[in-house]
Each structure stands twice: as C-alpha cells, then as structure tokens.
C-alpha cells in the first residue's frame, strides 16, 4: 500500500492535493484495494457547492457502494471524465490518472482537519 508523503488525507480514505486554491481529490490506494474493481464513480456537476465532511458522490465497486465525503468546503470545478470510460483507472493509478474531482476552495486558508501521510498510515494500521 502506498501513501505519498506530499498529499493530505481524510479518515474516509480520500487524498487531497491543494494547489492555487484548488483541491484535487481521489481515493487512496488502501481504499481501492479494499473496494476491489471500481465500476462507476458519480460526482456532482460543476458549480455544485460541497461541504467538508458531507457526502457528495459515490464509488461503485463489484461488491459494494461507498459514499464520497468532501474533504473541503468549496465548489466543484470538474469531475474526471476519463474514469467515466475507464473506471479501472481508480484501481490502477489512484493518485494519478484515477483522480475523481477538483474542488475550488471556499477560502484561501488551509482547510482544517486533514491528516498527514504519517497520520493516515497510522489510521489504516489501526484498522487491520
């Protein structure tokens, strides 16, 4: 299981990369392994307001469906259209081509409550 150092994380197994007021969001390697083959991801259309800690989309895999929780307050900029055609990207490249959504942050300050790579790794170890 990989947990890149340069990303932030949530307890709901999402990763967040913040750059220029925009948060890119995906699910972690740990999450994709636990879910199995991802077959469909739904995220709301551009312009939708999202709230940190609130569900805003879902990930369907062979065995289950899981809510996606927004890691930040903001507004959806775009979803990843590539995973519409090839949801398997979420499994094969969860931190890269398998990203799910970009969100414009509601304000410039660093979003609160995110975990470091170290904290997230500790959390997944606890779960085992």
């Amino acid at each position, binding site marked *: 299981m990989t947990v890149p150092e340069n990303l932030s994380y949530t307890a709901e197994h999402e990763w967040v990369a913040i750059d220029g007021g925009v948060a890119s969001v995906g699910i972690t390697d740990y999450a994709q*392994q636990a879910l*199995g*083959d991802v*077959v*469909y991801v*739904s995220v709301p259309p551009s312009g939708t307001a999202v709230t940190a800690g609130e569900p805003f989309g*879902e990930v*369907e895999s*062979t*065995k*289950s*469906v899981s809510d996606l929780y927004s890691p930040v307050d903001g507004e959806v900029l775009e979803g990843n259209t590539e995973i519409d055609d090839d949801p*398997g990207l979420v*499994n094969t490249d969860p931190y890269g081509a398998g990203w799910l959504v970009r969100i414009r942050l509601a304000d410039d300050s660093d979003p609160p409550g995110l975990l470091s790579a170290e904290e997230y790794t500790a959390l997944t170890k606890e779960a085992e």
Partner: protein
Amino acid sequence: MTTPDATKPRSTPLRGVHEQLGASMTEFAGWLMPLRYRSETAEHQAVRASAGLFDLSHMGEIIVAGPGAASALDYALAGQPSSMAPGRARYTMICAADGGVLDDLIVYRLDDEEFLVVANAANAAVVNSALRERADGHDTRITDRTDDYALIAIQGPAAAGILGPLTDIPLDGVKYYTSHRGTVDGREVLLARTGYTGEDGFELFTQPGDAEHIWMTLSAAGAAAGLVPAGLAARDTLRLEAGMPLYGNELGPDTTPFDAGLGRVVKLDKPGDFVGRGALAAAAQAPPRRVLVGLRSGTRRVPRHGYPVLWDGQPRGTITSGAPSPTLGVPIAMAYVEPEVAAEAGAAETGDRLAVDIRGRAEPAQMTPLPFYHRIHDRPR
C-alpha cells in the same frame, strides 16, 4: 470433527497457497477464504474465456451410508436420491416441514448404499443435524466429513483440456452431473462434472494433504491456456450471470423452491412421505406469492441485495442479488416481485414504470429472462 472456535475463522488446506498468491482474504460463513487475487473482473472474464481455479473447501461434505441411506434421503430431501444410479449427481433441496428451504444441495450417489451430500458452508451444521433427525429409524449413518475433504473446482471452456492430460479418467466419457473416482497427477480424487459458474467444469474432492499438490499442478498446466486462480467475488458474479440462486439471497427459510422457480426439484410423485410434502404440495397448486425475475439496470448504479423494486413508484418487490455484470457491461440483478408486476413488466417495454430504489433515487430497470448468460459451448451430456 474438531470443534470450531467461534472467534476464529476456519482455514482450508489451501490457505498458505492463497496467501502466497497475495489473495485478499475474507471471512465467509466462518471460513477464511480468498475474495480475490488481483482483479475480480479479470478473474470472472478468465473463467468465461479460458478457465479459473477455485478453492471450495469450505463447502460441507456429509456422507450418508448404509442399507437405509437411499430411503432416509428420500424422506429427508425434496428430491428422490433413490432413483439415481451410482455415479450420478443431482441438484436438490432440504426443506422444513413448512416448505421453506433449509439449504440447496448437490447429492452424489457414490454407491448403492453411499451418498455424498454437499451443503453450503453456512448451512452445513443445520443440514447435518436435520439429516440425523430425519434418518432416525432408517438403517444409515450420517457423518460430517467436511474436514476430511478439500474441494477444488476448475471451471471454464479450457477446463477439460487442462485437466484431461493430468487424470486417468477419460473426460470425454464424464457426463454433466456425474462423478468418477480416479487420480489427478497420481493423487486420488472424486471428480465431478459440476459447477456454479455457468461454464463447463469439474469439481475435485481430494484429501486435504493432496490439495496443494493438485492446485499447483493445475495452475502450472493451465497457465499457458489462461487459467487463473479465482476468488469468491468472481464466483458470485459468475453464478449471478448464470441465474443460479444463492442461499441467503434467493433462497431461505421463508422461500419455497416454487418461489425461486425451482419447483422441478420437488418430487411430489415419489412414493412415501417426506419432510415438507404437505406444504410443498399446496405450494405447487397455489398461485405464486412472488416471482423471481432478472433485471437489467438502465443506469450505471448497481441494484443491490435488499433494495426495493418499484412499479409506478410503489414498492412491489425486493432485489435479492445484484452486481455489475462483466459479460454484459451493465448492472444486473435478481429480484422477487409480485406476480402481477412480473406479468406486466415481462409483457412489454416498460419505460420508467419499472425501477429500483437505489439509495433513495428511482433508477429505471428492464425485466429480462434468466439466465443473463448462457454459454454457447455444447453442454456435455
């Protein structure tokens, strides 16, 4: 039989092999089983296109032996095992007195006075004790032999070609739903042409100590043909595409075989009484309470176990099993619906009238005949 520790799942003789292969393991019916090795979709597709190797050692094996074995099973089960010739196998059910299904089974007649009853892992104890009770007064012995057998299945169009050169049993002569004693790479097996995937294939009952050798031999022999190990996740989508019921989903104590469209397993014309006869005879005559149907989702959201089926916005049924179908490329499901809904939805294009309540949103679905998938290869007879 060892007493299972309730807090610790039981392991099959192949646990070490699965862990070495990097399987993602899961607890299923009290057993630690491989859920998937890599991608369950790739495992599913390998079984449809080539072959897959399954560890089914969690299944319950119960031996019923003695002069009264056949009559005991005729009384205990919905089917008529006494009518089977030695070497034949049959899909059947064990029902409660009220006609509800306690388990679905495969019964193998090994000899005139010896039968092998294969039960679902979750129901093995219930089946074992029901058989004991029902055999009382028949001259027979019931033995739970689950720990004495490993069970390996090789399934898929390439299965016969991979297994053939390794066994002394001429597979051309092995008909569907028959069993034969022989060897695989020198190790003793009971080989049956049975399965739960909708493909041709074989199930090999072996001694636990031989399981790893047979698994590794088949893996090596089949690799070039595309055989892969396959886990429970692939097994579930394979059986769903093939329209095969799963106990706990399509079958249960509140379901009769007739509800599930499997009334043919109930042999009401067999002589003598059997457990559930009165209730099952009535169920055979009564109009169906509900009908098991196939659904194809009109969206990419997946109908799953327990979701309500809607007709004109009203709940008129329940999903029993649902999954994204690797073969069809859309989500599919089985569901129990009211007979009127099944008749109307099956008769014409239904547009949005038929839907599934997927987490609060009605998603359109289309009724479709079962099974979803039928192999084109000739079934051996």
